[in-house]
C-alpha cells in the first residue's frame, strides 16, 4: 500500500484538489464488514452450497447439482404451499390496510378520550403471537369456543373455523388482521398528521363531501405511507410462522401449510437439509421479487405525487 502512495505525487500535481490518499476509513469498516460476512453473507453462501447437495442428517452428503431444485415443481406439497402462501399473504396485507386506514381516519378526528382509545386499539400489537395463537385456538373450538357462541347469538349457524380446510386460511388471517391492523393505523396516522389543512378548506368551499375529500385528497396524499405499511405487512405475512404453527401446524391435512411451515418440516423434522435449503433459496427469491415489485410501484406513486403537486 505504501508503494502506491509514493507514486501519486505526479497525479497530485495534475489535479491537486483530487489528491489520492489511502482511505483511512477501513479500520472503522472492518468490524461491521466481518459481522456482515459472518452472519449474513456466509450463511447465505453456505445455504446455497447445501441446496446443491443431498444433505441429510445422519447420512453422508453428496453433490447433486440442481437436483433439489428440480424436485420443487414436481413436489405437490411445495406447489400447494406456494398457493397457500400467496393467498394468506394477499389477505393479510389487504385486510389490515383497509381496516387500518379506516381506523386511522377515525382516530385522526378529535374527540374526547381519543388518546386512551388509541392506546387500547394498539394493544393487540404488544402481545406475544404464540400466546395469542393459543387463546384464539380455544376461541375457534367448534364445540366449546366463544366465536360460535357469538354467532349463535345473532342466529348464525356454527362454523368450523380453523378446523375445516375451506375456512382455515381466512380464519388465520382473522388473527393476523386483529393483531396487525394497529400497526397500519399507526403508520397512516403519521401520514395524516403530515397532510396540510388547506386543500380540505378549499374543497369544502367548493362543496366537496366527506367521501370526495377522502377519495381525492386524503387517499392520494397517504398513498406513499400505505405502500410502506403494505411492504412491512407483506414481508411479515409472507414469513409468518408462529401463529400458523401454534394454531394449526399447517392443518387440517395440509390446508394451511405455507412455504415457511413446509420448509421447517423438511429441514428440522425430516432432517433433509439439502432440499430444505433449496426451498429457502427459492423462498428468499420470492420475497425479494415481491419487495422489488412494491418498491417499483412506490417509485411510480412518488412520481405522480410530485407531478400532482407541481
Amino acid at each position, binding site marked *: 500500500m505504501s508503494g502506491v502512495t509514493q507514486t501519486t505525487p505526479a497525479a497530485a500535481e495534475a489535479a491537486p484538489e483530487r489528491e489520492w490518499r489511502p482511505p483511512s476509513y477501513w479500520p472503522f469498516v472492518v468490524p461491521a464488514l466481518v459481522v456482515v460476512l459472518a452472519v449474513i453473507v456466509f450463511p447465505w453462501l453456505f445455504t446455497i452450497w447445501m441446496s446443491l447437495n443431498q444433505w441429510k442428517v445422519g447420512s453422508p452428503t453428496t453433490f447433486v447439482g440442481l437436483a433439489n431444485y428440480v424436485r420443487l415443481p414436481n413436489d405437490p406439497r411445495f406447489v400447494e404451499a406456494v398457493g397457500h402462501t400467496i393467498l394468506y399473504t394477499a389477505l393479510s396485507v389487504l385486510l389490515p390496510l383497509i381496516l387500518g386506514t379506516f381506523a386511522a381516519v377515525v382516530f385522526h378526528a378529535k374527540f374526547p378520550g381519543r388518546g386512551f382509545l388509541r392506546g387500547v386499539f394498539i394493544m393487540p400489537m404488544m402481545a406475544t403471537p404464540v400466546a395469542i395463537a393459543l387463546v384464539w385456538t380455544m376461541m375457534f373450538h367448534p*364445540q366449546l369456543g366463544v366465536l360460535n357462541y357469538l354467532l349463535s347469538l345473532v342466529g348464525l349457524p356454527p362454523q368450523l373455523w380453523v378446523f375445516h*380446510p375451506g375456512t382455515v386460511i381466512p380464519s388465520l388471517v382473522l388473527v393476523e388482521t386483529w393483531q396487525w391492523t394497529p400497526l397500519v393505523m399507526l403508520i397512516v396516522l403519521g401520514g395524516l398528521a403530515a397532510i396540510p389543512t388547506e386543500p380540505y378548506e378549499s374543497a369544502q368551499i367548493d362543496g366537496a363531501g366527506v367521501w370526495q375529500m377522502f377519495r381525492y385528497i386524503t387517499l392520494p396524499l397517504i398513498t406513499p405511507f400505505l405502500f410502506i405499511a403494505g411492504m412491512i405487512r407483506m414481508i411479515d405475512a409472507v414469513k409468518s410462522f408462529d401463529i400458523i404453527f401454534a394454531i394449526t401446524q399447517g392443518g*387440517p391435512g395440509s390446508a394451511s401449510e405455507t412455504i415457511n411451515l413446509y420448509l421447517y418440516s423438511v429441514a428440522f423434522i425430516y432432517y433433509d437439509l439439502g432440499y430444505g435449503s433449496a426451498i429457502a433459496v427459492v423462498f428468499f427469491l420470492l420475497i425479494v421479487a415481491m419487495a422489488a415489485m412494491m418498491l417499483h410501484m412506490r417509485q411510480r406513486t412518488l412520481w405522480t405525487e410530485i407531478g400532482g403537486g407541481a
Partner: protein
Amino acid sequence: MTDHMISRRTLLAGTAAAGALSLTGFPARAEVQWKKYAGTKLEVILAKGPRGDNLQKYIKEFTELTGIQVESEQIPEQQQRQKAVIELASGKPSFDVIHLSYHVQKRQFEKGGWLADMSGYMKDPNLTAPDLVESDFSAAGLQYARNDKGQMLSLPWSVDYFILYYNKEMFQKKGVAVPKTFDEMVAAAEKLTDAKEGTFGFVGRGLRNANMTLWTNFFLNCGGEFLDGKGGILTDGPEAIEATKLYQTLLTKVAPPGVAGFNWMESMASFTQGRSAMWIDGVCWAPPLEDPAASRIVGKVGYTVVPAGPKGQYSATYGDGLGIAAASKNKEAAYLLCQWAVSKAQGARLLQAGGGVPFRNSILNDPEIQKGVKMPKEWLQSVIDSAKISKLGLPVIIPVAEFRDLVGAAITSTLAGADPAAELKKAHEQFRPILERSEKA
C-alpha cells in the same frame, strides 16, 4: 404412595440377601458394583412428560446409591428430538444418556450408529442386577430395543398401548353395550350420537400426522402389515382402504364437528366434557381423566381393549427407551443410570401413578405392585389385556415423520369427503421415492 412401593432400601436388602446366599454355598454370583463409578458426572436429555418427571423426582436415590452426579433436562418432545438428532449427527453430543421415542427414531438411530451396544453390559454381573434380563421385557420392547444383529441398543422404558376409553354414564343412558368389534363400535356410536344435544359417539385424532397412530390401529385390525419382505410400504393396499373407510365413517358421521383438526388434546377435551362417548388413544391419559380439576367424568370412565376388526384384534403399540450415546465417555456409569431408571422400584412408581407402563413383565404382573396402582382397576386390566395383543403401531423406517405427514394428510382429507383409495394412492406416490431415497443413503 408408600404402601406398596419397592424402595431403594428393599432393593438393596434384596441384593444384600443375594450376596448372603452366595456366601452360604449357592453358586457364587458377583454383585453389581454400584459405587465403582462414584464421582462421575452424567448428562441426560429427556422428553418432557411423566417419565422424565419420575426420573428427576427420585434421582437423588440414584446418586446416593452410586455416587454418580446426574444433570438432566426435560425438553418438549419435538424440540428434544431435533436437539438429539442434530447433536448426535455432529458426533459430539452434550449428553451421555438419551430418552428416545422408538416409534419415530429407532431406525434412524440404528442407521446413524449413534447408540452404544449394551448387550455386553447386560451379561456382566458386576454391572447388571440378576433380575434384569432381556426375556423380562415384552416382545414389543425387545423389537424396539434390538437391532438387526440382536444387540441391545437401549433399555425399553415405557410402553404406550392404544385402548378404548368410554363414558359409562352415556352408555347406560342409551342402553348400549361395550363394543367388542368394529361393527358393534360403529353401531354403538350411531346410537350415542345426538347432534342436537351436542353429544357424539366417537372422538379421536383427526389432525394430520397425529391421526396416524389411531388409523394404524384400524389398519392392523383389518389385517394390514406395514412392510413387505423387501422393505416396500404396504399402507395403500385393500386393508388400508378398508381401515380408511372405517376411519372416515367414524370421524364424519358420529364425531364432533371440526375433528379433522383434533389432536389428542382436543379429543380429550371433548371426552372429559362428556361430549363424546368413546375415545381411542394411548393408555397414559387415565390420570387427567380421573382428575376432578380437569375432568367432568371422574369415576364414569370405562377402560377396555380396542375392539376387534375383521382380521384380528391388536393394540397399536408405541414406546420410549433409554440409550447411551456411542460417543459418551462414561458408558458404564450411563448404563447404571439406565438400569436404575427401568428398575422394579422406578417402574412400579411409574405404573402406580399412571404416568406410564413399564415394558418389564415382572413389574406389570407383580400383584404387590398392582395393588398400589392409583388408577381404576379396569384401567390396569386394559393395560394387561392390551399387552397380550400388542403390535407395533408404525412402520420401522427412517422417514417416519414424512410417512405420518403424507399419509396422515391423505387420511385427513377423506374427512372432507375425498375418496380413500384415490387419496392413499396419491400419498404413496409421493412417499415411495422418499422411502427409497432414505434406504439408499
